[in-house]
């Protein structure tokens, strides 16, 4: 066995994880190689000096793990989908915009609106105000979820 091979095997020899046959080969080399023997001494000192976990750490972790296991849903259980707070108002605005567009593309409705107004109404895909809001759109901010649901249902029917 070469010194290079020894350097790779010494940690496992130190920790006692080599087979008996491998250990015998290492021991044979150590008997005749001063350099590898010195390295083995250093590794032995390191292994002996390695700190163990303080008493009570395992219990402390196990206790916390049990608490965590009860607090966290089991693996594989899918979380219920939570609708973000903005979803319903956004859907209402979208449907209102689409509904308004459909409504005012109807030639009969345009004619009726023109008759009520000062002149002919331009056939526009959507009415918008200067700030880009849909003309005539209700203020949705203060509506409850139930009211918005009713509005969406009404627009959808």
């Amino acid at each position: 066995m070469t010194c290079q091979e020894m350097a790779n095997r010494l940690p496992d020899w130190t920790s006692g994880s080599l087979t008996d046959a491998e250990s015998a080969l290492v021991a044979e080399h150590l008997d005749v190689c001063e350099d590898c023997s010195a390295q083995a001494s250093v590794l032995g000192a390191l292994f002996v000096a390695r700190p163990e976990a303080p008493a009570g750490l395992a219990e402390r972790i196990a206790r916390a793990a049990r608490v965590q296991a009860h607090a966290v849903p089991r693996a594989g259980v899918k979380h219920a989908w939570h609708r973000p707070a903005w979803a319903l108002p956004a859907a209402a605005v979208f449907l209102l915009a689409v509904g308004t567009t459909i409504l005012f593309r109807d030639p009969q409705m345009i004619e009726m609106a023109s008759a009520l107004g000062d002149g002919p109404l331009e056939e526009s895909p959507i009415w918008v105000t200067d700030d880009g809001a849909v003309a005539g759109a209700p203020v949705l901010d203060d509506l409850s979820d139930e009211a918005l649901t009713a509005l969406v249902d009404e627009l959808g029917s």
Partner: protein
Amino acid sequence: MKRNDTGDAASSDSALLHRAQEGDPEALDELVALHQSSAFRVALGILDGEADAQDAAQDGMLRALKGLAGFRGDASFRTWLLVIVANEARSMLRRRARRREAPLDDELAGELPEDGVVLRTEVARVRAVLARLPEKQRLAVQLRVDEGLNFREVGDVIGSSEGATRVNYHHGIRRLREWLKE
């Protein structure tokens, strides 16, 4: 010389893991008992105090147990766990450093205490000398010698390639030999 908690860990991990993933509380306890010392040592190799190392070991192990379902077995459970613990310890180190507003680099972390503490025992002397190594060299030596990980696994934990890990290990051992001769 036999390991306390490393030797047959890999072979027993598989059955234990399966039980733990099924939610068997005894299996969780066994996993913790089997790997707590390794987790503690890795954390201690990054942090410079036992109390912090205990906290990081605990937080890392809890994080690993919480994500047990996500463990795919690409690496050994031991390596996967130690990567998580090392990350936890590094995060803690960064938080501590920010709090102190004085970054703790490798060289500073490796200084021996300045309060004149006399290190009387050989074990304490070895630990103190080990603590002087830069972090990657120190962890490469610790993980290879104390935990029995191979160089690829050590590289996974310290965030280096297998080749760089070998270099760090051999540099570390050479320096330790010099310092321990003094």
